[in-house]
């Protein structure tokens, strides 16, 4: 432990402490001599006046010097370097893999031995201990206390999370900052620990070494659990080198339901189909016995409860207007199937009469307005104000001016005009959710040609897509608690050939999902994906979604963690990107700043200085 300074340059102010000393030396000879007639009477006063004066002068000198010293020290922002951190000294980070792939018998014991050895063999300096699976947690912060690290390492137990080496590296880079750091990773080098799309921060001069935990002899896991045609299907996966007999047991709401005995060949995957029809609702659990492999993947869960489908209402023109909705409806159904978003239609002349249809819909798509009376317009506007989203697709059946006047009065719409020559479509921001399916392939939207579209002005909408002419193609305008999306051309193969291109299906689906919002809750998540301690283990949990009744959610381990694929230590290290950023000498680390901010010794220094100045004033006046 030692005293450090965040701004050591201010220590130059200590030189000012010499000023009162110099003044004291000069002033000692400079007391004015005053001839006085009654000195005889002064001699009758207490004799020690001269001694007291000298003592007072020394006290004043000490107080004034101390005040200047404290001022300089306070500005230099002192801190006491805690035992838990050597701000600039070497650091060894021992990271222990606690994913469930180390839960086979004996594996974690071996991991603890390797961790202890890594701690004992660490370079001189601080040691930190990190436990990682799908997240990386600092168990012991950087400290010279190796006994604490050893003790904590001995207590690490495997969880049910998968492996994320990217999160480990990010945490290590955070801990290392500008220090001379070695990262010792105790792991089974599971290939599934590196995921495509992981953002791995580059390490600078950090040295990475791997202490390999031998893989399990083999593993039998439930890779998937599904319900098809009302019957349970369990996918078993074996990584044993020999065939195995396994008994798969099903339980519904924790009551035994059915079991089957199967043979599974070495390294094989087998689907086990159960005969008994599943109930319409309940929590389904599949389990298999495997004493030699990982424990966490021996169970899997599935919620059988029916899903309340989210409905999107398409307002069409009367009579043959159903064609205007056809392409959009079929495109959404193709992706969502029977369990996802539900798309229904209503004729525009019946909207006013069927008010319940609007109330029941999570979103509205308008492709026809013929017969849409004032009351219906007001009902639609009210629905948007209440939080629903609406997509208006211009077209021959849509009275765009009337609709926008009611919903987006600031937006001025001109009649649709032909585009000569035809134009194409391009997103303005590919990160918008309506283009989520496209990603880097947003250019696919440019394959469609647009012959006619409506012109819009004013209103300051958010432009999501433009035509090649520069005119807005898709805009978004907030209204009340909802929003209005306006597509300035049609979705029905009247003014363009968009519906004939492959890009239309994902666009329609993303539009529908965006309009419906987060209405659909997840039915199944991986361990650690949801907040809360109950989501850190596999099982059935309960969550509410937007004020609705609680829904059951199945939490399952990441099946990829059961993958026996391994990588070499060299390959592991090679994957980690390195940056050519050298340590910045003298850089102040965030850890040091944190210590100084926590201690705030400068406040005490200034307070003492003020006390000293008050005392100096009192003692000085007494003279």
């Amino acid at each position, binding site marked *: 432990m030692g005293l450090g300074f965040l701004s050591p340059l201010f220590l130059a102010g200590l030189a000012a402490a010499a000023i009162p000393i110099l003044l004291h030396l000069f002033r000692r000879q400079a*007391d*004015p*001599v*005053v*001839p*006085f*007639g*009654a*000195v*005889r*009477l*002064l*001699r*009758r*006063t*207490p004799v020690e*006046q*001269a001694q*007291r*004066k000298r003592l*007072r002068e020394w006290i004043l000198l000490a107080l004034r010097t101390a005040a200047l010293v404290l001022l300089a020290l306070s500005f230099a922002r002192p801190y006491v370097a805690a035992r838990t951190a050597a701000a600039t000294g070497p650091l060894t980070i021992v990271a222990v893999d606690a994913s469930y792939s180390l839960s086979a018998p004996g594996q974690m014991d071996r991991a603890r031995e390797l961790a202890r050895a890594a701690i004992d063999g660490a370079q001189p300096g601080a040691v930190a201990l990190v436990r990682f699976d799908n997240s990386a947690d600092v168990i012991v912060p950087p400290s010279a206390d190796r006994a604490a690290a050893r003790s904590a390492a001995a207590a690490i137990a495997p969880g049910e999370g998968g492996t994320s080496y990217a999160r480990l590296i990010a945490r290590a880079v955070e801990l290392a900052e500008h220090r001379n750091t070695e990262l010792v990773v105790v792991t089974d080098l599971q290939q599934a620990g590196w995921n495509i799309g992981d953002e791995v921060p580059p390490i600078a001069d950090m040295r990475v070494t791997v202490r390999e935990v031998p893989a399990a002899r083999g593993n039998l896991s439930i890779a998937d659990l599904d319900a098809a045609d009302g019957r349970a299907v369990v996918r078993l996966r074996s990584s044993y080198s020999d065939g195995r007999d396994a008994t798969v047991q099903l339980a519904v709401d924790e009551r035994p339901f059915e079991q089957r005995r199967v043979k599974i060949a070495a390294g094989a995957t087998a689907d086990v189909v159960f005969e008994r029809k599943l109930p319409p609702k309940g929590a389904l659990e599949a389990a298999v016995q495997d004493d030699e492999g990982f424990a966490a993947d021996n169970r899997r869960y599935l919620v059988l409860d029916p899903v309340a489908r989210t409905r999107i209402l398409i307002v069409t023109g009367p009579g043959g207007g159903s064609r205007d909705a056809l392409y959009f409806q079929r495109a959404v159904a193709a992706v969502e199937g029977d369990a996802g978003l539900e798309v229904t239609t209503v004729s525009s002349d019946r909207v006013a009469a069927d008010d319940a249809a609007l109330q029941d819909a999570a979103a509205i798509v308008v492709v026809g307005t013929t017969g849409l009376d004032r009351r219906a317009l007001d009902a639609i506007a009210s629905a948007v104000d209440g939080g629903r989203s609406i997509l208006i697709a211009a077209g021959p059946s849509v009275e765009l001016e009337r609709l926008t006047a009611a919903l987006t009065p600031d937006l001025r719409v001109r009649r649709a005009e032909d585009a000569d020559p035809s134009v194409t479509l391009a997103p303005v921001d590919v990160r918008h959710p309506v283009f989520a399916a496209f990603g880097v392939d947003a250019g696919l939207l440019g394959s469609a040609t647009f012959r006619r579209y409506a012109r819009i002005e004013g209103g300051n909408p958010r432009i999501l897509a433009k035509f090649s002419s520069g005119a807005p193609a898709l805009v978004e305008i907030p209204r009340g608690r909802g929003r209005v999306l306006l597509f300035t051309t049609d979705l029905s193969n009247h003014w363009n050939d968009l519906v004939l291109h492959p890009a239309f299906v994902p666009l329609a689906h993303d539009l529908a999902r965006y309009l419906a919002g987060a209405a659909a809750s997840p039915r199944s998540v991986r361990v650690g994906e949801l907040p809360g301690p109950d989501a850190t283990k596999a099982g059935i949990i309960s969550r509410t979604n937007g004020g609705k009744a609680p829904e059951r959610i199945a939490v399952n381990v990441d099946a990829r963690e059961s993958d026996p694929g391994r990588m070499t230590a060299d390959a592991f290290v090679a994957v980690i990107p390195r940056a050519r950023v050298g340590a910045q000498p003298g850089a102040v680390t965030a850890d040091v700043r944190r210590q100084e901010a926590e201690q705030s010794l400068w406040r005490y220094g200034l307070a003492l200085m003020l006390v000293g100045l008050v005392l100096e004033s009192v003692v000085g*006046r*007494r*003279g």
Partner: protein
Amino acid sequence: MSVRPAEQRFLDPAVVARIASLELKARTVVEGFLSGLHRSPFQGFSVEFAEYRQYLPGDDLSTMDWKVYARTDRHYVKKYEEETNLRGHLLLDVSGSMAYGSGAMTKLEYGSCLAASLAYLMQRQRDAAGLTTFDHEVRTVLPPSIRPGHLRALLVTLDRLQPGSTTDAGRPLHQLADAISRRSMVIVISDLLDDPARVVDGLKHLRFRGNDVLVFQLLDHAERTFPFESAVKFKDLETGEEIPTSPNAVRADYLHAVEDLIETYRRDLRVAGIDYQLVDTSEPLDAALLSYLAVRGRRG
């Protein structure tokens, strides 16, 4: 009783100090004081007295009053000391401590002015004034006389006074007590910053010999109030000793010592039948002159 403001300015030490000549100082002080008295309702002092006898052959022609001759065409001579009412001895302390002054005048200057004023006043009353200066011993002696040139000689002596050395008033007082043969009025002008017992003993000796004794203790205003704030080295004007002091630390005790000293003199001198007047040198001289007249008046 106090004189009117118009006359008081002649008694203001700051004004008096600006008058160069001591004789003129004395005249200014006394004339101002007396004119104030004349206008006041206070009566009882005999301030005008003149006595003549007819010239006889053989008289000293310097004693002839030529003004009277001019008016009356007769020759008269003035009466001299053997025919006056009073012999006054002015005893002025000229020790080093008397050289201190924080205002317009040092104690010695103030004392000199007071002595000169008293001598002038005595002369107007046809009293004989003498001067003795002392510190730890008698320095100068001018026996009381009413001769015309005597006042001038006394004033010149006063004007040329220099501070002496250490104080020991007891011995000179005893010496003077033995030297004064006729019953006189003894006026002591001193700061009395001395051993009170020895001083009072000496004064009692003078009183015991039948003299009227009036003591003026002169103290500078700073000696009475000790207004010093910052650290200083006080230098003893008699010994040269320097004492570094924190005034704030010693003020209370010093003031207590001053009051003790004053009270000691006041009490012991009253018991001895000796008149005592404390004089602050920042204040006008009228109080001192009034005290003198009060004592002078008791003698008739």
